[in-house]
């Protein structure tokens, strides 16, 4: 990953200095950024500092990478959590309905909708939403972000559209999983045992179907959440949402190695953490995995 970042053609110092600069300033800046050292040395230097929580300083702004990231983190967290909620609100009812009536009208409509949700480009959906709700109807601001603590109403208004766009995409993916796992759970023998006990239909469904379909749902939700947390670049840009995806993109454009490395490191850590949480949830959900 470190190597990959440095393989990207382009020189950050040159980009920062513009077109007119003298060689001395260039060399001095290069030395200060440590770019004159061999790559291997750069790497171990960076890794060693990163372990101590020092991710370096942005070439572009001079701010520390940690402060840049922690500035962006709340916006990204907010959007990711809101999106996953939207996704689950769509996916669980829709997937369940499809599974309860396979090949019915509901099922076919759900299949088509989720197929559209997966295939429609996010930027297009985002632009359509902006045109309709911010343009024609004027109900919602077209973008931006305000912290919840400053203006709760504005926060919610600005969150709604980006959360719906990313939520629809994730929700479409999750719907397919919910459908197949509920369908599988429905066909299990123990569901028949539960029915034969004379349990009310709702109890059979909640405790003997949904409860058993939870495991795949948790897995796919975790994957989707990790994806959302690593920044949804396109949606962030369309809605001018100051999240990590935008930060990473700017870092790539200006070859701001420290920021880019910091962001990628964070994404990796988030991914590992979410997988850990998913694994822990497994043991809570399925007694067969417990030891």
């Amino acid at each position, binding site marked *: 990953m470190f190597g990959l970042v440095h393989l990207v053609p382009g020189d950050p110092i040159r980009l920062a200095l513009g077109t007119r600069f003298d060689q001395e300033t260039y060399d001095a800046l290069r030395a200060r950024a440590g770019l004159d050292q061999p790559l291997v040395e750069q790497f171990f230097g960076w890794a060693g500092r990163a372990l101590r929580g020092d991710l370096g300083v942005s070439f572009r702004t001079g701010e520390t990478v940690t402060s840049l990231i922690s500035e962006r983190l709340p916006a990204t967290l907010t959007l990711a959590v809101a999106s996953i909620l939207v996704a689950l609100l769509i996916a669980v009812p829709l997937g369940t309905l499809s599974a309860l009536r396979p090949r019915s009208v509901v099922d076919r409509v759900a299949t088509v909708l989720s197929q559209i949700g997966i295939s429609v480009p996010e930027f297009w959906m985002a632009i359509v939403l902006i045109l309709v709700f911010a343009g024609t109807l004027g109900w919602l601001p077209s973008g931006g972000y305000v912290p919840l603590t400053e203006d709760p109403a504005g926060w919610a208004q600005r969150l709604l559209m980006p959360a719906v766009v990313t939520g629809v995409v994730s929700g479409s993916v999750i719907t397919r999983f919910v459908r197949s796992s509920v369908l599988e759970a429905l066909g299990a023998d*123990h569901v028949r045992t539960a029915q*034969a*006990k004379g349990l009310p239909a709702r*109890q059979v469904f909640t*405790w003997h179907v949904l409860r058993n379909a939870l495991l795949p749902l948790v897995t796919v939700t975790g994957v989707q959440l990790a994806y959302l947390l690593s920044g949804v670049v396109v949606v962030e840009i369309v809605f001018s949402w100051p999240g990590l995806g935008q930060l990473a993109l700017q870092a790539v454009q200006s070859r701001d190695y420290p920021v880019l490395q910091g962001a990628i490191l964070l994404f990796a850590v988030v991914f590992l953490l979410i997988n850990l949480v998913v694994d822990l949830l497994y043991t809570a959900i399925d007694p067969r995995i417990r030891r």
Partner: protein
Amino acid sequence: MSELAPLLEVADLRVRLRTPRGPAEVVNGLSYTVGRGETVAVVGESGSGKSVSVLALLGLLPARVAAVTGAARLDGEDLLTMPPERLREVRGPGVGMVFQDPMTSLNPVLTIGRQLVEGIRAHGEVSKAEARDRAAGLLAEVGLPDPRRALDRYPHELSGGMRQRVVIAIALSNNPSLLIADEATTALDVTVQAQILDLVAGLQSEHGTGVIWITHDLGVVAGIADRVLVMYGGRCVEDGSVDDVLERPAHPYTRGLLGALPDLASSDDGELATVPGTPPAPTDLPAGCVFWPRCPVRSDPRCETEQPPLAVVGASTGGLPHRAATWCSEGSSR
């Protein structure tokens, strides 16, 4: 078993399943009764419609693929036409059911205790603690060691035999007036099987429970059944008292089944007798006698073209008519 109305009266039960290969006539006009305290054994090969016929009674076949017609009156009330909420009330206290495969009949993510308790509490105001006490009592009754601790265990922590006893405990948990056991002891070893059979017999004499026992095992049939119903191709091909059917089988298929029993005393060199061929596909039943394509007798010209009715054959014992659906029963004796 007296002049009282029977506990269960099944009349002309038919089940048609929708399959990719066209409609399958899985059960074709099955009629029988089960009296209070009586045990009816249903025997037949895999695919003869035994399991489907009892699942149909409780409405446990998926409605999308199964069309069930006929009548099945439990204490005079038709199970097949009753409203869903009434059917729910009957499942459990009216009819308890033990399923075939103990490895999959229990929910893997819920404790044994929970699965028993929810069944008990679905039928009457019972506190959780009380239901747990009853659950532990039931587990003790079916011979599960350390029942209190077993309540907190999950199915995967128990062996197949223990799981099957749990399934039986669930079926018994509401003192059903009719118990349906679908290959309930097939997965158990003989000693446990004997225990379970004793337990059910005790229940029958205590509560007058009627039992439908579906099995391949003619040894079990001889041991527990009052009456035997032989199924083939979704039809009852022979029924009667256990003595009549096992001692004087009238249908060539029944004779084939009995002939296929391994006999330790026999002199032939351990070669197992079998009924050659396979049962007919329910999507493509023969026009005449369902057994005709495999039948070693076929002595009557009507066999191939005309369906034989279930008719009384020979003398009956114990007031039960001995009937068989065959054109070839005359002069039958083993």
